[in-house]
């Protein structure tokens, strides 16, 4: 699966969320992180539910090195990451396994379909009962990363 190796730069928000997640893992609904596109480490938001920021990440309590996390089941495939620690902090996350989308064989004809409409997405304010979105992959991701960081902890 090395060919599917991926690199990401993680924002502290994801880390906060995943630490929260690890604390709340036994609770049935984990709080999910606030991460927006184009966000970098200097402009992170902590999750709204975060009353206690994870001190380990901020002060750097990890041993330098690269730590491989557990393979976790994202149901549609496996996820496995390794955490790269430098200067006591998480500096990179490498994807060793990632669910692969289905192999493509034939392409659908791309003739223009004028009935399709477009709009820029906009955040909605009203309350909803349920939310639909892809969650399975990110939960497995956080599990694998957590197990990698457990190994890195001093």
């Amino acid at each position, binding site marked *: 699966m090395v060919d599917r190796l991926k690199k990401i730069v993680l924002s502290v928000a994801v880390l906060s969320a995943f630490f929260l997640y690890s604390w709340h893992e036994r609770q049935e609904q984990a709080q999910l992180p606030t991460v927006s596109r184009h966000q970098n480490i200097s402009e992170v938001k902590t999750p709204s539910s975060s009353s206690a920021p994870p001190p380990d990440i901020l002060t750097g309590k990890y041993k330098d090195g690269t730590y491989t996390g557990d393979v976790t089941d994202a149901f549609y495939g496996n996820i496995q990451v390794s955490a790269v620690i430098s200067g006591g902090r998480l500096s990179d996350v490498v994807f060793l396994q990632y669910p692969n989308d289905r*192999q493509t064989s034939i392409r659908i004809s791309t003739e223009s379909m004028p009935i399709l409409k477009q709009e820029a*997405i906009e955040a*909605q304010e009203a309350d*909803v*009962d349920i939310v639909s979105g892809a969650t399975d992959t990110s939960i497995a991701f956080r599990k694998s990363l957590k197990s990698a960081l457990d190994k890195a902890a001093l």
Partner: protein
Amino acid sequence: MKITKIIMGMPIAICVVDKAVDKKDIESIFTFFKSVDKQFSPYRKTSEVSKINRNEILLSAVSDVMKEILELSIQTKKDTHGYFDVDAKGYFDPSGMVKGWAIEKAVKMLKKIGYKNFFIDAGGDMFVSGSKKGSLWNVGIRNPFNRDQIVKILELENCAIATSGTTIRGQHIVDPYHDKTLTEIVSMSVVGPSVIDADRFATAAFAMGRDGISFIESQEGVEGYMIDKHGMATYTSGFTNYVLS
């Protein structure tokens, strides 16, 4: 009464708002989901799926539910022009098929007991039945760029919605190996009366990249809302029938 458990690597929430709700009934649905995981997980060595892959069970001797899944898988491969292929990984993995199928079974079980007003949400794919205190269920589509936000609110009745995509893909992953079209689209939601269709078509349409929404438009009984990496949404002609705001 709402109960959430992590099964099959994802949170499954069952919420029943009928007055005479019995917790045991909800527990029985979770027992069903656990049995589905045991039988169909390709990651469990003892599952029927794993046994099939090790050639320990002849295809002619598989269980009746496995036959159902196999037939559904073959049909879906045809329906999606090969985009949904349970053999794509080089071995038999019906995971993508099983989720929608299991939700549908669970919905039927709850209805058989006599419940009318409920929802079942398995990792963001769901079926909503009846209403909540007289008003329809409001279902949000999550912002793939910000998990705390929703970008669309739908009003659904006896209807399913499934979303394919990943929030990780929408963020910082730099992947020089992946096909470009797969990173172009970050979220694909499909709505319709059948949770099996919503689930299998959302998965297939997401794999099609930009063409996915045209595929949904071409299918009877489903509508779609696709979000690309620039935050632009494209939606099918009948999608607005479901939209509250």
